[in-house]
């Protein structure tokens, strides 16, 4: 009887304890594996950037060696100075900033106004026009690049800021994104405002825009990032270093110092540092914007 009892207790308790301790150590093991995998993946993503930075601080001798040194023995900013001597670095940074800010502001203002018209003002042909807008999203930008280049040549806009900015300032995407947000604005508020004698402009500026913060932030981030990183169009519409944006200047720099990787990497650091800083300070908007927009830079 006692033995039987004992046996039953064994049957009920010990295996369960064993099972639960096995389960918990399995769980811990699994968590450790998940972390190890994530850390490996994060290193894979981040380490190349550290290598870029490290290379940019090295002297030439430390770069062309078959057994790479992780950190420069004597970190030096000489590479950056060399670049600043050969390129108008501040001017190029200014160009990039001016072009990206101008494109972003134009995208925000004009897209928001157009989206407001589509979302809140009934007019004949609104639906058809919007479908045509959407259809332009399907056309790859390479289709328009040839006629645009011919147009810019004809207008004498090659090598000008307007040539860099205007072709990027209008897109159906911004209108599409903001229209979705504007549509959700409650009709009742607008009607109340109308009774108070508010014009469309007042409704747009005072009522609709203030509550559309997330959509506007998304468009800001997407426009700025894609303008800042844009390469193909600036490559063909700029000729002189004075008007170049960072990516184009960087490609030119590569041509000049083909094998001097410490110099090339210093240039790369200059190109990614501003956008990474911006990303780190507003990373929530970047992630939201990029995943909701589904567009890459």
């Amino acid at each position, binding site marked *: 009887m006692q033995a039987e009892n004992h046996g039953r207790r064994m049957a009920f308790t010990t295996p369960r304890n064993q099972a639960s301790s096995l389960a918990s150590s399995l769980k811990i093991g699994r968590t450790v594996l*998940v972390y190890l995998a*994530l850390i490996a*993946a*994060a290193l894979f*993503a981040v380490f*190349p*950037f550290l290598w*870029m930075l490290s290379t940019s601080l090295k002297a030439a001798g430390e770069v*062309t060696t*078959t057994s*790479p040194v992780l950190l420069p023995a004597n970190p030096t900013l000489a590479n950056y100075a060399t670049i600043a001597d050969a390129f108008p670095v501040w001017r190029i940074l200014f160009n990039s900033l001016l072009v990206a800010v101008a494109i972003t502001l*134009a995208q925000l203002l*004009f*897209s928001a*106004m*157009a989206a407001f*018209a589509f979302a809140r*003002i009934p*007019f004949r042909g609104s639906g058809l026009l919007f479908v045509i*807008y959407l259809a*332009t999203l*399907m*056309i*790859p*930008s390479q*289709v328009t*690049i*040839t*006629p645009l*280049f*011919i147009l810019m*040549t004809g207008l004498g806009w090659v090598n000008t800021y307007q040539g860099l900015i*205007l072709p990027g300032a*209008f897109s159906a995407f911004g209108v599409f994104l903001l229209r979705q947000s504007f549509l959700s604005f409650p009709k009742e508020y607008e*009607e109340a405002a*109308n009774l108070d*004698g508010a014009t*469309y402009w007042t409704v747009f500026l005072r009522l609709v825009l203030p509550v559309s913060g997330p959509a506007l932030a998304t468009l800001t981030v997407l426009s700025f990032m894609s303008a*800042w*990183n844009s*390469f*193909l169009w600036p490559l*063909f519409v700029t000729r002189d270093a004075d008007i170049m944006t960072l*990516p*184009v200047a*960087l*490609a030119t720099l*590569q041509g000049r110092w083909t094998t001097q*990787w410490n110099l*090339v990497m210093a*240039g790369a650091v200059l*190109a990614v540092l501003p*956008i*990474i800083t911006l*990303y780190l300070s507003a990373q929530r908007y*970047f*992630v939201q914007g*990029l*995943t909701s927009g589904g567009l*890459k830079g």
Partner: protein
Amino acid sequence: MAVVSNKVGEKNWVRRLWVAFFLGPHLIGMLAFLVIPILASLVLSFAEWDLLTPARWLGLDNYTALLSDPNFWDALKHTFYFIAGYLPLVLVLGLGLALLMNQKLRGRLIFRVAFFLPVVSAWVAVALLWKWLLNPRYGLVNWLLSLVGIEGPGWIFDPNWAMPSIILASVWKDLGFVMMILLAGLQAISPEYYEAASLDGAAGWRMLRNITIPLLSPTIFFVVVISLVNSFQVFDQVYVMTAGGPAGSSQVLVGEIVNNAFRYSRFGYASAMSWVLFALIFIVTLVQLWLQRRTVHYQ
């Protein structure tokens, strides 16, 4: 009383003025820099024009010339090669990362920030970085390979390895982007499905195959469409890393369009090629929409 602003009694011409005011600036911009260039490109694709001599109407000659242009076929082949290597890799790795990230973890934000660094960086900088990492003599990658006794290839200097190099850099850059979209999709799956499935004894691989993947299929579909459309337009990384070389072994469609337009001033021919690119993207998107209707599961 309140005739102007009240919509009910609003005069038609007043409303039209408001439409013109709100829509006008954007519409003019769209016409000048998008719609008219699109139409011009279509017309141009039936003509020959180098901007110096008068344009000449060719009819369909540009398109028939494409069919017998080995450079075009090579570029098309390389573009498909890129897609065949890039798309499965970025999807599988992105899904793996998203599954790892889709649980209660400390420091998830830090991982997310890390994975997104390549996504926000300019392609030119990333392409130069990988060109340096893959440098056959002094690059980090071949040095790491040598540590485990492998003699690394010539990467971008070897016609057989140039495209794999470009694929590697592209997967690295886009992985975080694909991961984030899939993660958002995973987080939208209701936990009830998992609870029900685990009551039925599903776990691990079976859970992934029978529950997660089918419920994630709308998101996967979205990622595939976007990645495919972007892949057809692959250019920046190719231009910077290999410029289509060595010996044309990594030249892609957009590279060929750019060469024809800006190097050889064959604007009509380049336009024709860009419309073929559009047709390819259009067909592939239609096929995917058709496939989606048949295979994608919605919750």
